């Protein structure tokens, strides 16, 4: 399955960037949780190691094979998610956790990989110059099964992160100008309908406080405000590692998960923010540059979707914590604490490496 020639083609620089960003995450998790029980940074480190092993496992299997089995994998995840809704225990307000023996995780994270593979397979068959409505609806239906199940948990943040996969496919398949406009109108309509009929009060409040976070400092605007205070008070060079008062004195919420970047901003200042922006940008652009190097259409879809998945979460998170986007509960891949998230990101990068190293292979 894997020969020497392909081994030489492994993109070690991408793996290096992946690990650098992961280790930045571990360091920030240590700063934001060293006073909590459970040694979270060690757990994260363990997850990085496990995920690296899984990454190498991922690249050892030809992605063509993975694509072939992808419908079954998706069905399996759909079943697990359905089972969670039926039998799962509510943890932190959502039925999103699965525990197997000593290890626990959120299947909703890994389900993204399954969706990614299925979409890659479906879209690679699509050979027209532009996306057709029928095909768009069909592919959306595939995605909305797991998204719906995750949204019902309810874990709206994770559900939203599925959407860039679909949209990435639409973009790659080709959108006419009028389709794009139609999309915008549709998004607006869904948004309006959602505001009036679907969103719960707390979700609405998150959106309104985006506009004016200080109007209700202890309410839902509190989190954004505290995050902005943390980041803003970091200044140019920051307050120093483990010395951020907003983080260490717990004014900042969800410090080691959703608001890990705020900890960075407070303790390392604008300099630290720029540095991580830069290394993350290098990491992302390396994946994006892989897209045209793919041997075939499914490969391109896989790489592009992986890139969009990670980029979307990163960008939304760094906008969210300074109040440019509603608080959506979306962590930063690699930086935020969370085994499932790390594992999913590593597998996605594994798929990218998988595609890239097989670009010269003969079918």
């Amino acid at each position, binding site marked *: 399955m894997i020969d020497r020639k392909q081994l030489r083609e492994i993109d070690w620089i991408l793996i290096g960037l992946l690990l650098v960003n992961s280790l930045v995450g571990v360091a920030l998790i240590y700063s934001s949780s060293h006073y909590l029980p459970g040694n979270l940074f060690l757990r994260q480190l363990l997850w990085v190691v496990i995920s690296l092993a899984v990454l190498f496992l991922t690249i050892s299997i030809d992605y063509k094979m993975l694509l072939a089995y992808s419908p079954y994998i998706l069905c399996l995840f759909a079943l697990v998610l359905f089972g969670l809704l039926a039998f799962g225990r509510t943890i932190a307000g959502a039925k999103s956790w699965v525990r197997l023996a000593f290890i626990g995780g959120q299947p909703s994270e890994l389900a993204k990989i399954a969706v990614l593979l299925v979409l890659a397979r479906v879209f690679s068959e699509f050979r027209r110059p532009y996306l057709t409505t029928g095909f768009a609806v069909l592919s959306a239906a595939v995605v909305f099964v797991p998204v719906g199940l995750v949204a019902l948990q309810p874990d709206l943040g994770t559900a939203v992160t599925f959407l860039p996969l679909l949209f990435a496919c639409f973009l790659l398949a080709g959108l006419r100008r009028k389709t794009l406009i139609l999309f915008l109108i549709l998004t607006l309509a869904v948004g309006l309908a959602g505001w009036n009929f679907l969103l719960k009060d707390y979700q609405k409040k998150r959106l309104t406080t985006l506009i004016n976070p200080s109007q209700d400092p202890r309410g839902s605007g509190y989190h954004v405000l505290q995050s902005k205070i943390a980041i803003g*008070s970091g200044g140019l060079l920051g307050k120093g590692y483990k010395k951020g008062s907003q983080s260490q004195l*717990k004014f900042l919420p969800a410090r080691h998960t959703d608001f890990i970047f705020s900890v960075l901003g407070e303790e390392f200042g604008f300099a630290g923010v720029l540095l991580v922006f830069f290394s993350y940008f290098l990491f992302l652009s390396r994946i*994006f540059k892989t*897209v045209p190097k793919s041997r075939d*259409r499914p490969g391109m879809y896989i790489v592009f979707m992986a890139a969009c998945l990670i980029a979307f979460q990163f960008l939304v998170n760094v906008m969210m914590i300074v109040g440019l986007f509603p608080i959506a509960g979306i962590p930063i891949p690699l930086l935020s604490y969370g085994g499932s998230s790390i594992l999913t990101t590593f597998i996605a990068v594994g798929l990218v490496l998988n595609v890239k190293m097989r670009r010269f292979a003969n079918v």
Partner: protein
Amino acid sequence: MKSSQIYQDFSPIQNRVQIVTILIEVLFLVLALYYWKVQILDYKKYWKMSEANRTREVIIRASRGVLTDRGGSVILADNQGAFNASLIRENCKNPKESYPRISRLLGLTEDELEKRIEKYAGQPLFKPIVVKDNLILDEVSRIEARKADLPELVIETEPRRFYPFQSLGAHVIGYMQEPSPEELRTVYKDRRLGDLVGKTGIEAIYDSRLVGVDGKAVEVVDSLGRRMDELSRVEPNPAPKLRLTLDYDLQAKAEELLTGREGSIIVLEAKTGDVLALASFPTFDPNKFINRFTPEEWLGLLKSPDTPLINRAIQGLYSPGSIFKIVMASGGLASGAITDQTTFFCGGSAEFYGHPFSCWLEGGHGALSLTNAIRYSCNVYFYNIARRMGIEEIAAVAQKFGLGAKTGIDLPGEKEGLVPTPEWKKKTRNATWYPGETISVGIGQGPLQVTPLQISAMTALVANRGIRVRPHLLRGEDSSPGKQEAGVSIQSGVFEKVIEGMWRSVNEQGTGQAARVDNFNVCGKTGSSQTVSSEKAEKMAPQMKQKKTHAWFTGFAPRDNPQVVVTVLVEFGGMGGATAAPLAQRIFALYQDKYDRQKTASRN
């Protein structure tokens, strides 16, 4: 062929990827710029907010100056540590949810809680509002246990005023209350929300001297307001103690004697004006006022018909009755209206200006000298002096004796009383003065009004043979003997004659004989002042007439080297000689026991 087909196929895809990549690059750039704005341009603003988050200024209240009696060892007003429950509105996530919880926790109705918060609506949100004070330990632990989910409710400690003897000296010491937000803005500008201030008595008049300098600590706190560290600390500086002139034993005795009556007893040190005791009854427990929130009880005291909050010694206005004969006798001699040889005949009544004026003794006293007129308190004798002096002369003498003006005691709210003159009557009632009224004033009736303290000061003036003293309550700087005020322009021989009469009144079967103390040479004068007009009194049965008079006694002792002045007023107490004089006797006896024996013992 196959590969070229693939490459043809891929070029639009590559373009699309390119566009997305550029979009993401732009987004990265825009975000970096926005972070630059937040972290570099707005740095100061957020840094201040983060400092405000992490630090908290805690006021460490200084304890109020302690009040002691004249010996310095009996503490009349002390301080105790107390716990308050305060609400910080800024920390309150959802008032609708938490206020009912807080009111249940504190045992208040929601309405009461709302009112207390409402009171400070104009204050900044971060300032703690005291919603319940003087918590018991059980309440403190119940609040502490809910600290995590009720971050808006905090426990504060403060030194709290405490009066160990409850109502003892309450009218002198006064009480403390929370000022209204209006008063905070105008009168007590340097005070903080929730501070208590002295509202009456010594607590009010020396309030600024009793306030210490509060300390301050800057603490580092976490998001739940838990104290993590301390950055700086300035210890509070308590106010020094104030020593009052009150004598604990005399004050306690005076209040004991008044229990069950309405009236006042004043004991002055004759030469200095030190107030040894100043009692007013009924009284109240000032400890009850320190509770910030007992409006019902307070209103109850305010509205009570026997007016316990009134300090009768300085705010009660009474006709002096026969006590005024001291002024008349002194004035008559000084003005030359009479001499010490002048006698008048008392036949039980006499006619002046066509009206009959009666003496209290229906059979009359017969022919009387001045000293005996004082001794028996004969009305007719003094009617005659009044007619000879005239109202202008009487008023001038009364004013010389300090009537119609504040004594200047260091207590707020003192009343002036009234010395009537024809001009006064013209001005206030637009009527002319009848000569008959002068006759009434001669025995201390008519529009004449005095406070018991004025009578006390007047008695001290007589005892000191014309040297005036100012009654005062603060010992030390204020009571040095040099502070005696100027004398009145009356020869001391005049006073000797009056004092002779007063001595006889007590020691030779006069009206004041019930005040006699062996070996103490008490000199005094009784009074029974009418509380209703004389026309009405004439129609009453004799027992009723007695019941309707205020009983007075004022005197000093010993005769030649006066040490102590005692004034007693019992409202509706009947005859001064029967009701007031025996009370004065107990005070004189106690004084002699405590001070006179001490002096003789030290001399031996």
